[in-house]
């Protein structure tokens, strides 16, 4: 009994000393600021900043490789907190929100053929651009939804994806996941948006989808800047976004909409 206790106690002592020595000898020097930053970051490890997770980003900020406002998910408050730790000042950038430039569900844009394959937009797009009549339109198979780490994308019953602006962190993952390239990040304060990506001429666009932009240029004339038709598609220039919401009424096909993308949380 005594012998056993002594042996175990001895073992424990030796191992403890060994571990204590190893912890000192093999210690990795980390900047304490990196630990502090990691506490402030959202911890989603989404990769939206371009680094491999939040810890990597914190290290990059400390070494100066990443800007203090580089975390798109955390937004302004996180940027300020990070800047505080680093002893820098940061200019607040406006929060952005992902927007899908398509609203043509199955009821508005018919399907060209019966797609019977993998439930993936990228795979469907390989088969002649997908089954949607509009070759630029949302295929609704959810590649963006799968890429979103924040549950901010829903596939509506009409077979089209929609961003839930409230949850969107503008990490940009969906932008890269969409094989049609019809998602981009827009400033949350902008209220007038073109929800169409179709670059066909008017008659073909009309045939492809009931809410397609037919490039009639009425919006361009009404706005007098900030919205322009190029390549048969009206596009909003968000740098000088139009504010006159009456111009939405000018669109004969309902491709231009007023949306409130502001989040109540921030």
């Amino acid at each position, binding site marked *: 009994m005594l012998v056993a206790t002594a042996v175990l106690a001895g073992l424990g002592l030796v191992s403890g000393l060994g571990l204590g020595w190893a912890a000192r000898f093999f210690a990795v020097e980390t900047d304490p600021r990196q630990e502090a930053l990691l506490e402030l970051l959202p911890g989603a490890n989404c990769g939206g900043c371009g680094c491999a997770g939040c810890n990597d980003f914190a290290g990059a900020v400390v070494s100066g490789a990443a800007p203090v406002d580089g975390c798109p998910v955390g937004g302004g408050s996180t940027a300020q907190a990070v800047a505080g730790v680093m002893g820098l000042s940061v200019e607040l950038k406006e929060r952005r929100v992902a927007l899908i430039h398509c609203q043509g569900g199955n009821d508005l844009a018919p399907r*060209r*053929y019966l797609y*019977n394959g*993998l439930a993936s937009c990228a*795979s469907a797009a390989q088969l*002649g*651009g997908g089954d949607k009549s509009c070759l630029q339109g949302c295929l609704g198979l959810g590649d963006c939804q799968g890429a979103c780490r924040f549950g901010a994308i829903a596939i509506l019953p009409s077979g089209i994806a929609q961003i839930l602006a409230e949850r969107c962190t503008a990490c940009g993952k969906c932008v890269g996941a969409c094989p049609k390239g019809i998602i981009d990040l827009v400033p949350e304060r902008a209220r007038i948006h073109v929800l169409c990506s179709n670059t066909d001429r008017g008659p073909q666009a009309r045939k492809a989808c009931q809410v397609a932009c037919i490039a009639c240029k009425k919006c361009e004339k009404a706005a007098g800047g900030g919205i322009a038709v190029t390549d048969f598609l009206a596009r909003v220039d968000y740098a000088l976004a139009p504010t006159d919401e009456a111009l939405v009424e000018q669109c004969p096909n309902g491709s231009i909409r007023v949306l409130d993308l502001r989040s109540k949380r921030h």
Partner: protein
Amino acid sequence: MRFKGGVHPDYHKETAGLAIETLPLLPRYAVPLSQHLGAPGTPLVTKGQQVAKGEPLSQPQGFVSVPVHAPTSGAVKAIKDWPHPLGRSLPAVEIEADGEDRLWDGLAPLGDWRQQAPAALRDALKAAGLVGMGGATFPTHVKLSPPADKPIDTFILNGAECEPYLTSDHRAMLEQAPAVMEGLGLMARVLGVKRIIIGVEANKPDALEALRKACPPDVAAEFVLLEAKYPQGSEKHLIVALTGRRVPAGGLPMDVGCLVQNVGTAVAACEAVGQGLPLIERVTTVTGEGIARPANLRLRVGTLLADVIAHCGGLGPRIAKVIFGGPMMGLGQFSLEVPVIKGTSGILCLPAERITQYLADPCIRCGTCVDACPMGLVPSAMGVLAERGRFADLADYRVGDCIECGSCAYVCPSFRPLVQLFRRGKAELRALESRSGAA
């Protein structure tokens, strides 16, 4: 010799007994400028211009490119985007026929190929717009121009026609045997190849016999009856079966001194040299349970699918799918406005009861696909990797060697769309490569 793997689908060669009939002249045609692997040509004609049958409509761009020709005489109505069998709209020349079917006076037949120099023959084949008519549509003159360090010693005629339902090559071998043999001799002369092997699947002994009878005395060919197994008609597997040589991974038949040409290509080569006729016609099987009157048709390239279907009595009431090619490798069509192109070997019309609407289950690692894969790949593991988006790992499994024959998906008890997954993987890998190349 047998190749590893492969499957035995129901062959459904119901149309094998139907003689080739010629589709009557139609009022309009649409000839896509891109009907081959490689760069599409630029149009040589303008809107409103009168063209004659056989007149070139496009100028090839680069070496791996061939022209397309007018299927009949008439006026060019438009040059515009038109539905293409590959699934998207591509530029095509729309021709309104004048009903005269007047032959172009610029045709230059070379006459007897035995008197011609190999280079002249090769140029004639390029000018005639010849491509591999088995479906891959690789320009024939490119195949016939191997680099100097890859001498070709064996010429193989592919009469396997292993795709279920298709019988166009079978009928061509029976009805046009002399043209097949002449075309074969001609192409062998271009390369100066002495050894000629003709391979036909065992379910068509009559075709092999017809070719043997039609063989000219100066063409020394071996006639081989092959095991009926899918994909016997794949170039690499045909070479293994006939010569025992194995094309290295990522290689081409010329790496083992072989060249494979399809039956239809041989007929077209014979016509191109003998009569100066460019490739404006091909034999296509129209079949399946969804068409009223199956047939083997001689069609002009540019004939619209709707016209072919109308000639064959129309589609059945429960039609679900119209495929260009066979059921294993063919491409489903999304419009009846698509034109028949040089590589359209069959038009398969299937009713709803022949189509499986399935939801793929997870892979159960049974390994059936591994046994079936004729390329010796591991489709089960590759499918899982592609599904997870691990495309770089997919390259380690040599997805690039997949010939997309569909044997794995055919045997999969979980109904996994394996070929679609691999096609996606290949596309992603190409994108990765071009990105790293640009960076």
